[in-house]
């Protein structure tokens, strides 16, 4: 049936008709797409044909996972939805990790995947995969397009869903025959959906109760997550904190939502957060969660988390409220209107005693690390990045020790300057994400802090940075280990290092390879082969010079730092435990 319709439509010569492929391009333009990341293939040839004349830039990634992380990095850095385009089958399945990363962190993305023709779906056709089924749990929503007349509407809806409420990735699965078919449909002026109403009106009784709790608290604490950044609510948050002198701790995703150089800042909370932030959670009598979701890496032992406090949870996602911890007051809504509504009712307060207490913790327990003479410590490298960039760089990270040190030894003062895979913890995220960041914020210094493990997961994307002449400084903290896993094996598995050695050195017989080179790859040669500028740093004295050189000569740089192999991230609250169990071997 469809095939006949297609032939009829193809012979129709009314000039206002557009192909499905053209609808995709027009839909992207209408949504404000400046740059599209992707990878072609058989099932998206028609879209790539239409892309030939598109008014926006196309960036060819080297792997579809890289394309999604780029779009994700772009979205995190700009607040605008990231866009990507991939082919069917393996092209689409390669996006799954990227989609799941964005879904966990609430990042707006629209990913168009080619699909085999409608009449071939379910036939085990070449490069066919059930993309709707595969991506359902890792997207906010997905669409299989069955009729070209619906396509303009679906694209508009996809962007609407991706960017409203708690943002998230949306997949449009677009069969090849529909890309060729023509339609007279035009996109709607405004999107209305019967079953999706992201706008939640502020509820005055809730606001009154919220204000009451703030005004009666003697030890209030703001616990701030990525929602403040997604909701562009940093100013309102700062106003609330300063009006009532409420100290602020942030989650990993919330770094930058509140300036870390503010006297009220306690910096990151949770497993590897600051002592002051974790003590404050334990001692506060009112915990105000703004756009955070009480992740297990923050709460540790849930029953003992903020046990002396009443908990207010503000979130646009109703299902987050009360999910993990008991909540005394849940306020559903966007943070800007909620905070604006409560501010007039908040009485100025000093909380002198509480702030003195908190400041004593801050002074007594700063982030520190052992620094034996002449040994290049990874923490020192981060401090140097902060010093040389004067704190003005956008930082992207991989996952693990490099990520945690990046939270501890750099200070984030602006939203959207710390770009990291929080919820899913995706290794290989940092490098492609930093490329997306650069496309969103051209010319700003971007530093990708990564490890020798994570960087190898998407190293191929380095050529994209090089060919687009993107000024990205990739700093590889090379300790020869999958460091965070090694740290857990050291602390909780009696140093039985299994599967974590990237070098042959010290490997057990069942991992050791006879006569193999001791350590691969040579990152400097690898960077050179990709066309990047590069250097290797082995002692502390060389770090500042290497970084200064990289910042002075904007280009894609790879700086490999051979760091102390068994440095650990402290403080650490062991998983599922209370702050009292904190390990802090550096003080």
């Amino acid at each position, binding site marked *: 049936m469809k095939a006949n319709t297609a032939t009829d439509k193809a012979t129709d010569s009314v000039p206002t008709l557009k192909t499905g492929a053209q609808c995709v391009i027009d839909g992207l333009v209408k949504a404000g797409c400046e740059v599209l990341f992707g990878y072609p293939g058989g099932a998206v040839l028609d879209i790539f044909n239409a892309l030939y004349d598109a008014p926006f830039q196309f960036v060819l990634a080297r792997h579809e996972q890289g394309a999604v992380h780029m779009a994700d990095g772009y979205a995190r850095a700009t607040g605008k939805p990231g866009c990507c385009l991939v082919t069917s089958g393996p092209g689409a399945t390669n996006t799954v990790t990227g989609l799941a990363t964005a879904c966990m962190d609430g990042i707006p993305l629209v990913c168009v995947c080619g699909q085999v023709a409608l009449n071939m779906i379910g036939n085990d056709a070449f490069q066919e995969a059930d993309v*709707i*089924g595969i991506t*359902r*749990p890792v997207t*906010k*929503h997905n669409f*299989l397009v*069955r009729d070209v007349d619906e396509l303009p509407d679906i694209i508009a809806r996809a962007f609407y*869903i991706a960017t409203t409420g708690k943002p998230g990735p949306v997949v449009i699965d677009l069969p090849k025959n529909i890309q060729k078919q023509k339609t007279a449909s035009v996109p709607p002026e405004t999107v209305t*959906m*019967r*079953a*999706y*109403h992201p706008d939640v009106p502020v509820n005055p009784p809730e606001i009154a109760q919220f204000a009451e709790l703030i005004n009666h608290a003697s030890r209030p604490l703001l616990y701030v997550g990525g929602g403040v950044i997604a909701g562009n609510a940093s100013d309102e948050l700062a106003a609330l904190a300063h009006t009532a002198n409420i100290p602020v701790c942030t989650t990993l995703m919330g770094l930058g939502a509140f300036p870390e150089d503010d006297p009220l800042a306690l910096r990151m909370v949770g497993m590897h957060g600051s002592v002051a932030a974790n003590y404050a959670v334990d001692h506060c009598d009112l915990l105000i969660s703004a756009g955070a979701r009480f992740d297990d890496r923050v709460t540790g032992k849930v029953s003992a988390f903020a046990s002396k406090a009443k908990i207010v949870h503000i979130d646009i*996602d*109703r*299902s987050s*409220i*009360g*999910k993990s911890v008991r909540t005394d007051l849940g306020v559903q809504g966007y943070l800007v209107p909620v905070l604006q509504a409560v501010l007039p009712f908040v009485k100025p307060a000093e909380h002198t005693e509480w702030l003195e207490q908190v400041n004593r913790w801050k002074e007594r327990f700063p982030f520190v690390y052992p620094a034996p003479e002449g040994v290049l410590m990874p923490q020192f490298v981060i401090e140097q990045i902060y010093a040389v960039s004067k704190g003005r760089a956008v930082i992207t990270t991989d996952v693990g020790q490099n990520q945690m040190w990046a939270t501890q030894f750099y200070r984030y003062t602006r939203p959207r300057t710390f770009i990291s895979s929080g919820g899913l913890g995706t290794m290989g995220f940092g490098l492609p994400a930093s490329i997306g960041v650069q496309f969103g914020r051209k010319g700003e210094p971007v530093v990708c802090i990564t490890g020798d493990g994570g960087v190898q997961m998407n190293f191929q994307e380095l050529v994209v940075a090089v060919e687009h002449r993107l000024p990205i400084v990739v700093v590889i903290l090379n300790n020869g280990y999958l460091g965070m896993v090694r740290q857990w094996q050291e602390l909780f598995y009696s140093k039985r290092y299994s599967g974590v050695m990237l070098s042959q050195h010290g490997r057990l017989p069942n991992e050791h390879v006879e006569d193999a080179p001791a350590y691969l790859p040579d990152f400097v040669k690898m960077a050179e082969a990709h066309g990047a500028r590069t250097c290797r740093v082995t002692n502390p004295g060389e770090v500042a010079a290497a970084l200064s050189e990289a910042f002075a000569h904007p280009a894609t740089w790879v700086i490999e730092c051979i760091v102390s192999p068994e440095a650990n991230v402290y403080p650490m609250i062991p998983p599922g435990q209370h702050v009292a169990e904190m390990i802090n071997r550096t003080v």
Partner: protein
Amino acid sequence: MKHIINCLVENQPGVLARIVGLISGRGYNIETLNVGPTEDPTVSKMTIVVPGDAHVIAQVTHQLSKQVDVIEVVDMTNRRHLDRELLLVRVATQNHHARAEIVDLAALFMARVVAVQEESVTIQMVGNQETVADFLRLLRPYTIIDISRTGVIAVGREAVERPAKR
């Protein structure tokens, strides 16, 4: 405790899979699930029976409400409602005594014999979950050859004041 959740959804392909995937993907169990059309051809109604404590059920309803294709979610359990299940059961009748007993039993439950074969009877019964369970318990001494149940459907007995999602 079992909860009966009524869910109005867009009548679109893939919505059922989304709902089922959402519940099972979070490790919750679905005891019964029934999907049918409503007076509006673009809307389907699902009735889902989920066992779990209040926390689990609250998560299920919030997560369902969040779905783009879900129009309304109502936990029927805590409001006045009627729930019914249709049961078709074929029971072996080795002799006419057994047949008479089974027919009597069916009559007590206002169930109907809808087919009679030489060595079995087929009974249709409508009731709430408890009544159906009682009936099946009393049938246990006999040999049940086959059984088909629709799962629960439910309807509210008064206007919904504030559904989980408008």
